[in-house]
């Protein structure tokens, strides 16, 4: 028989099928339940794993080739950035605060996603799903590492970066992102996919990476632009995986719809709250701004998210429950969070500041219905206090939300003058929430959320409220890492070094 004459030319889809999907087999010596023990307890019914559609059909040869090319480009820029004092190219030292949030809160999330996708890359019984998740697992460790490598050079010259590993586990604002990822990882494989693969990747990461990275470009930070866009190129695959996964669940069995809808409601709201930090980075921490949080929300939230939910309507999916509240919060959240960061800045490993007249004019133009009315009077009063030598520090610390763990800085959806007070009692204990969304999440699974490690109560339980001891414990160096940018070591160094670079003296 002449093999050559009969050899078939396989198309991309068929080639991928034989090279990947066909590797698995029906086990004979153990049951599927023994090999995949976590696949059913969430109640998701899957009848045919072969119906899984692989959106991008990358085999390992192509993966290595294209990813290596991305890596070569990335590290060439990072090396040049370090060798040429690229950190002095940024528009202003204030910008560094955004990077500090990134390294402390977001990079550890990338690592958690890496672990989570490794787990689900083993727990799903279908080969197509497993491989897609494994590729995401290896991509996510890439993101954690490229971010650490890109920001490593900043750490050598500026404060606030040095203790990111300690801050990840102990710093109050970082528990927001930490608890989000812990929540997803403690869930079953299907919920994890909705949490990270769908809600976070598809609905929300564009808001994190795309406008913020354009902002980094505006602010002369090529290191961050490079890791951001380089990471986001993997996200395109990840988002598609998330969307594929949700369609797969919905197509497999009608009983899956209410479970999936419940997860969408939950994870949309959880993700929206985590992104509150990003809204502040965009509106306040970029010295030169590319677009406001509100504008980014219009494009990536309303337009893109809207299109997505319209598309999913054919399966019976409706937009997530918190959608309208999110829309209402969009004009307020960045201001509310920045006001908090400023008054608690003695306890942050990043600097904050009072917006300048120019900043306030921009904020007022971007938020015409809210900034001047609600937030300008507060900032102007804070500025007056500072001018009198009485920098506003709120030593009252803060009530935290049991679910999202943010300080409860948010107001009623329909009354921006009224703080949102929500509480419930479960098994004799009081719990507080920042919103209806977070209260619903708690009430659906109270046994889970009562376990939350809340950093502000812990300060009292473990250290009797001793702020000095607490600073040592989170590796925060008082007078260096924290406080107002104006008068900080970072400001002094940045301006002095930049002076050296631009003059001959």
């Amino acid at each position, binding site marked *: 028989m002449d093999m050559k004459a009969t050899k078939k030319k396989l198309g991309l889809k068929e080639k991928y099928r034989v090279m990947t999907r066909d590797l698995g087999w029906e*086990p004979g010596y153990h049951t599927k339940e023994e090999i995949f023990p976590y696949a059913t307890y969430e109640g998701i019914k899957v009848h045919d794993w072969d119906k899984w559609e692989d959106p991008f059909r990358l085999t390992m040869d192509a993966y290595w080739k294209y990813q290596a090319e991305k890596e070569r480009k990335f590290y060439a820029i990072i090396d040049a950035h370090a060798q040429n004092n690229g950190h002095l190219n940024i528009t202003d030292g204030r910008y560094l605060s955004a990077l500090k949030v990134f390294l402390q809160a977001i990079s550890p999330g990338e690592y958690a996603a890496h672990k989570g996708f490794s787990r689900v890359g*083993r727990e799903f019984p279908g080969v197509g799903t497993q491989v897609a998740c494994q590729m995401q697992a290896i991509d996510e460790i890439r993101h954690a590492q490229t971010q650490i490598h890109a920001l490593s050079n900043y750490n050598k010259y500026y404060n606030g970066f040095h203790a990111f590993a300690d801050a990840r586990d102990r710093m109050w604002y970082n528990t927001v992102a930490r608890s989000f990822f812990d929540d997803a990882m403690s869930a079953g494989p299907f919920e994890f996919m909705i949490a990270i693969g769908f809600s976070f990747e598809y609905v929300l990461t564009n808001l994190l990476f795309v406008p913020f990275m354009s902002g980094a470009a505006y602010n002369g930070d090529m290191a961050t632009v490079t890791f951001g866009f380089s990471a986001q190129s993997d996200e395109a695959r990840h988002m598609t995986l998330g969307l594929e996964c949700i369609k797969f669940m919905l197509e497999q069995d009608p009983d899956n719809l209410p479970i999936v809808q419940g997860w969408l409601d939950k994870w949309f709201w959880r993700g929206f709250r985590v992104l509150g930090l990003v809204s502040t980075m965009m509106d306040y921490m970029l010295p030169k701004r590319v677009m406001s949080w509100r504008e980014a929300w219009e494009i990536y939230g309303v337009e893109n998210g809207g299109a997505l939910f319209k598309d999913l309507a054919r399966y019976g999916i409706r937009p997530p429950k918190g959608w309208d509240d999110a829309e209402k919060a969009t004009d307020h959240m960045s201001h509310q969070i920045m006001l908090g960061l400023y008054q608690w800045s003695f306890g942050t490993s990043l600097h904050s500041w009072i917006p300048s007249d120019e900043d306030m004019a921009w904020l007022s133009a971007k938020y015409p219905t809210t900034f001047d009315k609600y937030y300008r009077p507060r900032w102007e009063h804070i500025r007056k206090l500072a001018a009198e030598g009485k920098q506003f520090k709120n030593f009252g610390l803060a009530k935290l939300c049991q679910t999202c763990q943010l300080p409860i800085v948010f107001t009623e959806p329909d009354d921006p003058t009224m703080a949102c007070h929500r509480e419930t009692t479960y098994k004799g204990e009081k719990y507080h929430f920042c919103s209806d969304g977070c209260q619903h999440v708690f009430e659906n699974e109270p046994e889970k959320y009562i376990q939350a490690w809340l950093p502000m109560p812990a300060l009292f339980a473990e250290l009797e409220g001793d702020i000095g001891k607490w600073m040592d414990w989170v590796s925060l160096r008082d007078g260096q890492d924290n406080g107002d940018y104006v008068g900080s070591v970072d400001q002094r160094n940045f301006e002095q070094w930049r002076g*050296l670079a631009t003059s001959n003296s």
Partner: protein
Amino acid sequence: MQIDLRTVSIQPLRQTFDHLARRFGDKPASRYQEGSYDIQAAENLHYKPTWDPDQDLYDTKITKIVMKDWYALKDPRQFYYSTYTLARARQQDTTEANFVFVESRGLADMLPPALRDTALNVLVPLRHAAWGANQNNTLICGYGYGAVFTQPCIYHAMDNLGIAQYLSRLGLLLGDTEALDAAKAAWLDDPVWQPLRRYVEDTLVLRDPFEVFVAQNVALDGLLYPLVYGRIVDDFLSAQGASAVAMLTQFMTDWFDETKKWVDAVLKVAAAESDDNRAVLQDWIAAWSARAASALLPVAEIALGANADAAVGEELAGFRTRIQKTGITI
């Protein structure tokens, strides 16, 4: 405004991150160190897993191996994502060139049919075993503790997938899709393959990540790779004129030489940690390698016939010598 930043000489405030300075002193850290040490959450884990409420989200107690510091299990290759990916991309270039060479010169068609069949019969079913290895390494990465120990496992898992795909390409090149179908049928039903399939399925129900590491990366791979790719492909098939096959499996040979250094380093450090660890490792390796040897015997017989028994025996002796160097005697 263009600033000539190269002309500025400024003193850094510090050389590295606090957690690396605590481990290695305040000196510039390598990218491997920055990207690996202490990057897994360690404290104040928020919720118990719903998939097993008796575990913590990151839990050192799910394995019998006990380490004071899991970050002691250093990868001697110091692979982080970038160095790993660049290394594999280079190997992929070579492999691609080898496949093109074999294909463009029609070397596959020049193989004596008996040898070609032997190559197909031995190698192509192994793509399913490689898939099992992928599953196992993904599990170790997912549930093992500490990035220094676990990140090489996701790289290893992707390598296992790559190997399964190279074996698939080899099957397509030498025997078209029918070869893949025949190999899958053999893997599922041919008595020759059942001991190995059973071995793989037995490892898929293990949940102690370190035992999975031993059963897969130490015991099975430690015998399979030298036996199949060394003895059968590079020696036996090549000697009879089928060196084209060896070109198509060069990746596997090189890969095993590289990765076993990592596997040995992990064993050595874990065994040196305590007598208890050494005893556990010893039991695991003894049990799993004995099973692996008997599972591989019928596979070796496909190519080596009556000589298979001696071949497997020699590989097992070689394996024992290798393991001995890590401080573990079997």
